């Protein structure tokens, strides 16, 4: 009988816990998390917008741990891992021995070294439920919000607070909103819809300093062009960094992220890592996949984890939906095909007969095959005339025996 310990109750940690229990019905599985409750950070804006409560953003059942006979130690941060003694230490003096350990600590929001930002009590991230709780408290005292970064996290937070009547200013270093997923036109559509809901955008500009009160709270953000923007609190949505401190402190190899091999093993035997903390990808579905793969390896299945493809994103703000997959930025030597009508905007990047990027703004129903075409590099040079209307019918194949579809190229 083996003892499995998992640090972190996010996408990777929980997925791993489920798979370990599925493979090993009798072994001990323990999850240690800083978070009190399991929640999906992708839905945090539903909580902040007061659309759902904490249970409403739980992505597994309320009885997940009970049902699966998994021990959940919550509100505890693991301080040290003794890799020789195979024990983790947390809390005052608690410890948990392991036969196999999974580090799934995720990533934390990053505050750049702008004066006062790292010390001010009214600067928040938007990663965890605890962040949302703090923002809620702050919002009760003041409604002027300054958001740094107009990526998905920044816009998530903005959309939640818009609904609650906030006065929002969003600063973005790039010249357009959601710069990594959009092009200029798509960004302008989202910008307009957010502006229609009361948000103000400052594009191509960043925060460079701040004015603070006696308690150290930032009362005005000073932009790089010298402008002062008054605010009640600030949400940092300017990027995340993998949480690697525990690895660094425990002699597990890590630089920007915890280093893992093709089976998600770290530099230390019997210690695995999965999710954002590995730096392989920053998106939820990849974290889930890594958690499951690591768990299978931990359970004795010798399975390589294929390199993830992180360039994939969907967004749904105020009923405007967009799908963005692949590399819209890598256009050298590629053909850019555009389809634009009053209700649809689509862009395809095609290089050497293969799709390398696809953007669709509008109804994104049935779009899943585009991601697959990009990942698999299927030759579509014969189908470019209908690139915006491709369906699986163009690649139809089926396994006669079990009825599963298969691409036929």
């Amino acid at each position, binding site marked *: 009988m083996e003892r499995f310990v998992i640090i972190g109750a996010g996408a990777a940690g929980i997925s791993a816990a489920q798979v370990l229990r599925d493979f090993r019905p009798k072994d001990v599985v323990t999850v240690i998390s800083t978070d009190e409750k399991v929640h999906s950070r*992708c839905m945090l804006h539903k909580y902040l917008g007061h659309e759902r409560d904490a249970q409403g953003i739980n992505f597994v059942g309320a009885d997940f741990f009970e049902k699966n006979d998994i021990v959940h130690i919550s509100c505890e941060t693991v301080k040290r891992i003794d890799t020789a003694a195979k024990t983790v230490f947390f809390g005052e003096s608690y410890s948990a021995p392991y036969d196999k350990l999974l580090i799934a600590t995720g990533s934390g929001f990053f505050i750049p070294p702008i004066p006062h930002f790292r010390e001010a009590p009214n600067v928040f991230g938007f990663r965890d439920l605890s962040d949302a709780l703090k923002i809620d408290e702050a919002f009760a005292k003041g409604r002027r919000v300054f958001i740094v970064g107009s990526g998905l996290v920044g816009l998530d937070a903005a959309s939640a607070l818009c609904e609650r009547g906030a006065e929002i200013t969003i600063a973005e270093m790039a010249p357009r909103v959601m710069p990594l997923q959009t092009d200029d036109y798509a960004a302008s559509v989202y910008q307009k819809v957010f502006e229609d809901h009361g948000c103000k955008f400052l594009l191509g500009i960043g925060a460079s300093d701040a004015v603070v009160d006696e308690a150290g709270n930032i009362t005005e953000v000073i932009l790089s062009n010298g402008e002062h923007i008054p605010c009640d609190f600030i949400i940092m949505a300017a990027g995340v960094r993998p949480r690697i401190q525990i690895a660094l402190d425990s002699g597990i190899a890590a630089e920007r992220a915890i280093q893992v091999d093709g089976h998600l093993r770290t530099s230390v035997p019997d210690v695995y890592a999965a999710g954002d903390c590995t730096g392989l990808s920053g998106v*939820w579905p990849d974290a889930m996949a890594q958690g499951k793969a690591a768990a299978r390896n931990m359970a004795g299945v010798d399975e390589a984890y294929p390199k993830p493809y992180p360039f994939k994103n969907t967004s749904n703000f105020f009923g405007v939906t967009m*799908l963005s997959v692949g590399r819209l930025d890598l256009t050298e030597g590629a053909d850019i095909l555009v389809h634009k009508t009053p209700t649809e905007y689509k862009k395809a990047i095609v290089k050497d007969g293969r799709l390398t990027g696809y953007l669709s703004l509008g109804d994104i129903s049935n*779009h*899943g095959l585009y*991601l697959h075409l990009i990942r698999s590099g299927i030759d579509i040079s014969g189908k470019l005339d209908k690139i915006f209307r491709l369906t*699986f*019918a163009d690649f139809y194949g089926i396994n006669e025996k079990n*009825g599963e579809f298969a691409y036929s190229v």
Partner: protein
Amino acid sequence: MKRIFIEPAKCDGCKNCTLACMESHREDGGRGLYTLDLTDPANQSRNRILSDGKGGYLPIFCRHCDDPDCAGTCMSGALVKNQTTGLVDYDAEKCAACYMCVMACRYGVPAVSPDRKRMIKCDFCQHLEEGPACVRACPKKAIEVREV
């Protein structure tokens, strides 16, 4: 698990299965093909009958895959591969309409609801005692349920 099998060679594109699916999932409280609102975009079929480009048809029906891309992407717990039935179940209450599942399904099966609040996918008509409505509706007997 049970899976819906379709023989494309027998499909004539009559779309009886499409109508049966719409009828099975209508939410206006009515019953019967006579009163099914054929112009309401909220009344979408979960299956699509697409042209194969050669005068025939390719029915694209959710496979409830053994290793579903959609459930493997879901961040809300709305899409789950049911271990007992083998079907990929969808809970609209849990769904946060992020549409990562739409992006992930390599066969392009899931669709976005017109109000952008839900995803639309085959649910194997588990609410019907007789099973999937499309099976019974096909006049060419091109659709059947098999154990796999």
